[in-house]
């Protein structure tokens, strides 16, 4: 199955990734300010985590903008070739996104002190990802990921596992505190997890691509709203 991305999406995608990166860097900055006062290691970890996630989205944003500029002449829809400089730059951009995002999610999970993540525990998430890949007819799910389909699925599988844990912890925090700010944080991470679930399930329907990005946008809007409410001195309890 091929998923052809229309040109307009690259423009929308660039704006969206830039928005996500902006929220990420704000969260990183405020987390670092907290760390400067408290000197608690988990605040530092939180700051670095958001910084890494921001870096991933910046890489995606640059890649998307590059694609948009490269393909303007072949609008309304274009396909990224399976070789050449455009293909290579897409690979670099996406790998930076994969690595920094996974790093960011791992650090986010580690911020919840009682967790001791051992890298070995992540491997079980890879097995179903690879297994499902075998069941998918054909390997050219994405015209621009001809050799990286498995890695694409592995990345999203690992992200789902990590974000499920983070969403669980933030969800439990909301249940404990009944604070609407905690609920916004939980929503943020839940939508980010849904994004990865929909991207993982992309082989079943191309519609999931748009829904996934919409979910990601909702997640970051939730985190932005939380940040605005905190800085404006909003109510702590419902």
């Amino acid at each position, binding site marked *: 199955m091929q998923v052809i991305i229309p040109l307009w999406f690259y423009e929308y995608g660039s704006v969206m990734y830039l928005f996500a990166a902006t929220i990420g860097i704000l969260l990183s900055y405020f987390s670092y300010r*907290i760390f400067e*006062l408290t000197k608690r290691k988990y605040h530092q970890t939180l700051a670095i985590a958001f910084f890494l996630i921001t870096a991933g989205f910046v890489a995606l944003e640059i890649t998307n903008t590059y694609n948009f500029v490269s393909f303007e002449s072949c609008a309304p829809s274009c396909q990224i070739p399976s070789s050449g400089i455009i293909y290579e730059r897409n690979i670099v951009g996406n790998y930076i996104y994969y690595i920094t995002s996974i790093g960011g999610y791992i650090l986010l999970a580690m911020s919840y002190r009682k967790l001791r993540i051992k890298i070995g525990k992540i491997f079980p998430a890879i097995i179903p990802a690879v297994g499902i890949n075998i069941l998918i007819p054909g390997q050219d799910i994405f015209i621009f990921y001809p050799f990286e389909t498995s890695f694409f699925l592995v990345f999203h599988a690992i992200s789902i596992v990590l974000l499920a844990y983070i969403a669980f912890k933030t969800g439990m925090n909301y249940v404990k*505190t009944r604070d609407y700010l905690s609920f916004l944080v939980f929503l943020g991470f839940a939508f980010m997890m849904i994004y990865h679930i929909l991207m993982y399930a992309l082989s079943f329907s191309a519609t999931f691509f748009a829904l996934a990005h919409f979910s990601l946008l909702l997640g970051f809007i939730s985190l932005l709203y939380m940040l605005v409410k905190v800085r404006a001195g909003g109510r702590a309890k419902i």
Partner: protein
Amino acid sequence: MAERRSRIQVIVDILRVIEAQEGKAKPTHILYKSNLSHKLLKEHLNNLLQKGLIEVEINGNKTFYKITKKGREFIMEFRKIEKLSQAFGLPV
């Protein structure tokens, strides 16, 4: 058993005690309300004086500690930081 307070929490607790007393409090009142030893309290009060978050007022033979404008702003900023940290489920 309650978790030990961080240094910043102790500082904020002292400032909040003074603020709650209409911005001016005696050392003994601060001592009891902040749940600190005399030695530790003296250290923290000197630290707060140096940073300009509180000032001393001597009224006859009575000493009071007053919270400054900077001290009040610090408490307000700390409240925001506390909310942000707690929103993520991470204690300050």
